[in-house]
């Protein structure tokens, strides 16, 4: 993490990011250039948006930042503590909500007390405490998405990456989601929201558009 003058600390810097995918076998082998030099940055206390049409490479960019995909070129300076909320909940259908918290507490190296406190507070904040002992396969789409978000927040990351985070939320949860994001931002967390449709632009510090594999600020 770096500090520039009086500005907040930089929690994510992406410079000249390039990524191509190769599909099919010869003679139908095709190369699809998804990212052709994308740039963006997020500072602590900022809520930044990344928008683009379907297939523009938003999720690819995010997956490269978290380490799910390798990049072909460019530079990334990630934060020490990263929270990742993928587009579809990457969870185990047969495990309960509590068991998910236990596994991620292990991954984030939280001790028992911190893990319990984080679990209770997130269940309360996102209002799904009554589902604590439900298996993921028994949850509705919206509640799965709450779990998805809660798992990304358990360790109070410096940067929270949200990929289409409110898909499946009802209106109340949607409103609560933005309030929660505001609270996290005020506490100094950097947040990057990736979506094909950002309706709450006034809440955002900055918006990047991803077009033809390049980001444009504004």
């Amino acid at each position: 993490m770096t500090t520039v003058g009086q500005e907040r600390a930089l929690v994510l810097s992406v410079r000249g990011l390039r990524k191509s995918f190769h599909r099919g076998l010869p003679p139908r082998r095709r190369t699809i250039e998804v990212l052709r030099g994308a740039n963006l940055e997020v500072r602590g206390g900022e809520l930044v948006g990344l928008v683009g049409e379907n297939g523009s490479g938003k999720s690819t960019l995010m997956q490269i930042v978290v380490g799910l995909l390798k990049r072909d070129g460019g530079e990334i300076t990630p934060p020490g503590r990263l929270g990742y909320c993928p587009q579809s909940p990457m969870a185990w259908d047969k495990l309960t909500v509590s068991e998910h918290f236990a596994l991620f507490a292990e991954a984030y190296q939280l001790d028992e007390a911190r893990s319990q406190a984080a679990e209770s507070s997130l269940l309360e904040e996102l209002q799904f405490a009554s589902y604590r002992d439900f298996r993921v396969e028994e949850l509705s789409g919206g509640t799965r998405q709450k779990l998805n978000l809660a798992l990304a927040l358990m360790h109070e990351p410096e940067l929270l990456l949200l990929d289409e985070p409110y898909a499946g939320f009802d209106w109340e949860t949607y409103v609560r989601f933005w309030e929660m994001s505001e609270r996290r931002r005020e506490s100094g967390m950097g947040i990057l929201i990736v979506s094909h449709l950002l309706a709450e632009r006034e809440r955002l510090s900055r918006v990047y558009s991803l077009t033809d594999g390049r980001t444009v600020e504004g």
Partner: protein
Amino acid sequence: MSGFGAISGNFLREQIRAPLNLVLLVAIPAFFVLIFASVLGEFAEALGGDLARQSATAISAGWAAAFLCGALSYFQVSSSREADRRLALAGLGPRRVATGRIAASLALGVVVSVVAYLTLWLRSGVAHPLHVAAAIFIFAAIYIGVGALIGTLVRGPLEGSLLVVLVFSLDVFSGPAMTSSGGFGNFTPTNHAANLLIAGGGGQGSPTSDWIGGAAIAFGGLLVALVAFFLSARGRG
């Protein structure tokens, strides 16, 4: 519970909470030992093999363990790939995810082997208990590797499960007991395990070469599974 125990315990729980898995855990050994074994000897005779009835019953317990472990191991990878990857990225790392998965697979392998052994014991009795139990577990360990490897290489559940069945079928019908001596049968993954189980089922001892060969391939199978679980949890394309 320790961190490692919590991780592997949750991975194991994930498998045994599938009701179909529990049904198959009983149904597959029962089908193989009680029904499949009776026709296995006739198949062997038709293919030029010399599988005696007692040995056919014994080896069918090994095949049951192999089939179940191959399928369970395959689905452990294919159904959990994304979640395992997220957990690894969150800080657990692919190495710890893989060791949790291999521990869960081994526990399942032991359970499957015990069920197959008990089915065999109920059907025909077991003359050499330790010999037969070890041979059945070797079958299980080899197929933990086969299932995990296919799960890592093949993403589609239909294609992957069919490939597990194809490998299994080739292995069963090309093994030393099913075909005339020589050829491809000597190179099937369960060649030594089959020899061990045929001997044990017939109340005979086995040569050291089969024990060493069987143990080496079982260890290799588990090593392959460990690497496959690691690659699946890391998965950077």
